[in-house]
C-alpha cells in the first residue's frame, strides 16, 4: 500500500466518521432523542447558514472579523518577530523584555480585552490590539528561542568560508528562525481569530463575534452553530495556506 493510498483511506475513514455523526445527530433531532432547542438538526443549521449568506447582511461582519484577525496576525508577526530578534541579539534588551513577556505569556491574554476597549474604543482598534498581543507574545518566543537555538557549528562554517555578519544572519539565523516561526504559525492563526472574536464578544457593533453574542442572547442555537462553522471554515482555510507555505519554505526538511 503506497503512502498516497494510505492517505486516501485515512481521509475516507475520517469523512465516514463525520458523516455517521451527522446522520445520527439528524436522526436524533428528528426522532426527539435530542432536544433541537440545544442541538438543532444539521439540516436546520445548514438552512440557517444558507439564509445568513443569502441575506447579504453577513458580509460586512465577516469583513470586520477577518480584517481584525489578519491585521492582528500581520502586526503580531512583525512586532513579535522584531522584538524576539533584537532581544536574542542584544543581551540587555532581553533582560528588560523577558520578565514582561513571561508574564504576558503566563496569563490568559484575553483578559486584556476590556482594557483594550477602554483604550481603543469598540471599533476595529481594540480587536486588532487583542489579536496582536495574542500573536506577538507567541511569535516573540518562537523567534527568541529560534535564535538561541541556532547551531553554533553552522555559524562557524559560514565564518570560515569567508562570510561576514550579514552572511551569518542570512544563511544561518534567518532560516533557523523561519523553521521555528513556521512551527507556531498555525497556533498564531488560531490566536488571531480568538483575539478578534473575543474582542467582539466584549464590545462591538459588528463582526462574527458580535453576531454570535447576539444569537446567544436570543437562545438561537442554530444560528450560533452556523456562525461557529463559518469561523472554523476560515481558520481551516488559513491553516491550509499556512501548511502550503510551510511545505514550500521548509522543503529541505521533508524532501
Amino acid at each position, binding site marked *: 500500500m503506497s503512502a498516497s493510498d494510505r492517505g486516501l483511506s485515512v481521509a475516507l475513514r475520517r469523512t465516514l466518521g463525520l458523516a455517521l455523526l451527522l446522520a445520527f445527530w439528524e436522526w436524533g433531532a428528528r426522532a426527539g432523542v435530542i432536544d433541537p432547542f440545544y442541538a438543532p438538526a444539521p439540516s436546520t443549521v445548514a438552512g440557517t447558514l444558507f439564509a445568513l449568506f443569502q441575506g447579504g447582511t453577513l458580509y460586512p461582519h465577516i469583513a470586520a472579523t477577518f480584517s481584525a484577525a489578519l491585521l492582528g496576525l500581520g502586526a503580531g508577526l512583525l512586532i513579535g518577530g522584531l522584538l524576539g530578534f533584537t532581544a536574542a541579539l542584544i543581551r540587555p534588551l532581553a533582560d528588560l523584555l523577558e520578565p514582561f513577556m513571561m508574564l504576558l505569556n503566563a496569563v490568559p491574554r484575553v483578559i486584556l480585552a476590556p482594557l483594550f476597549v477602554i483604550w481603543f474604543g469598540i471599533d476595529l482598534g481594540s480587536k486588532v490590539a487583542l489579536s496582536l498581543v495574542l500573536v506577538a507574545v507567541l511569535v516573540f518566543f518562537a523567534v527568541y528561542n529560534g535564535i538561541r537555538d541556532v*547551531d553554533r*557549528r*553552522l555559524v*562557524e*562554517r*559560514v*565564518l*570560515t*568560508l*569567508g*562570510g*561576514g555578519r550579514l*552572511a551569518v544572519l542570512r*544563511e*544561518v539565523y534567518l*532560516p533557523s528562525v523561519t523553521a521555528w516561526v513556521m512551527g507556531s504559525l498555525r497556533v498564531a492563526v488560531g490566536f488571531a481569530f480568538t483575539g478578534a472574536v473575543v474582542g467582539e464578544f466584549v464590545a462591538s457593533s459588528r463582526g462574527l463575534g458580535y453576531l454570535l453574542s447576539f444569537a446567544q442572547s436570543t437562545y438561537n442555537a442554530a444560528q450560533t452553530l452556523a456562525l461557529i462553522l463559518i469561523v472554523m471554515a476560515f481558520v481551516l482555510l488559513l491553516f491550509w495556506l499556512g501548511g502550503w507555505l510551510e511545505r514550500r519554505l521548509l*522543503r*529541505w*526538511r521533508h*524532501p
Partner: protein
Amino acid sequence: MSARLQVLPQPEPAPRAPEALGERLLAVRGLTLRYGRNPPAVEEVEFAVAAGELVSLVGPSGCGKSTILRAIAGLHRPERGTVELGVARRALGFLFQDDALLPWRTARDNVALGLRFAGMSRREARAEAEAWLARLGLAGLGGRYPAQLSGGQRKRVALAQVLALRPRLLLMDEPFAALDAIVRQQVTQELLRWVEREGIAVVLVTHDLEEAIALADRVLLLGQGPRARIQARHPVDIPRPRDLVAVRGHPAFAPLYRRLWRDLSRAMGREETP
C-alpha cells in the same frame, strides 16, 4: 581546470611580518588554550608549517587537537601565545570534525556558498560547485539536500566546499574518521593527490597513526591533557608524491610507526602517575 579557477581572487601575500615568518604559512608560538575557568587544555604549544608542507597532529582523545585548529582559524581566543598566518584569512580552509552543512541549502549551494562570499556571481558559483562535486564523485547529486545524502557523501560535499575556495593552508580535523575503510582510502588518496599537486600546506589532526605517517612530512605528538604539550616531533622521510597503499611498505614506515606508538603510550601513561 586551473583556468576556470582563476576567477577566484588570488590569495594576498602575508598580511604582516612576512620576513619573520619566512617561508612559513603558519607559526604558532607559546599557545595556551582553555575553556572558561578549567585548567588550560593545551599549554605552550609551538610549531610552524612551511608552504606546501603537510603536518600531522596526533594525540590522545580530548588532549586539545581540535581546540588548537579552532584557535588557528580564529574561532577560539588564546589565553596566551600567538598565531601568525602567512596567508590571508580567505586562503585558510577548515574541514571540521563533523560534517555540518547548511541543512536548508542543496549540496550545490553549500559548495557555492564560499564562492559567493568571495564575490562570484550565482551562476558562475553554481557551475563551479557542480564541477567540484563531480571531481569528488558526486556528479548529479548537486540538487540534493544534506538530509538526502549519506555520511560519506556529506563529508565529500564539505570537502568540496573547502577546496573550491582554493585554500593555501588547509586545516583538517579528523576529516574522514566517520567513513568506511574503502571510501576513506579513496577520498584520502584523492585529497592527497590534489594537495600535493597544488602545493597546499596542511595541518591534519587524526587518531590514526598510520594515516598520520602516510600523509605527512612531519608528525607532531601532543601529550595527555590538561596542559598538554607537544611531546615529540618526527620527520617522515618518504618521498612524494605518495601512494597511500604503497607508502605503508616503505622501509621508513614501520620503524616510525613503532616509535610513534611507543611515544603515544608513554604520553598517555605519564598522566596516570602524576
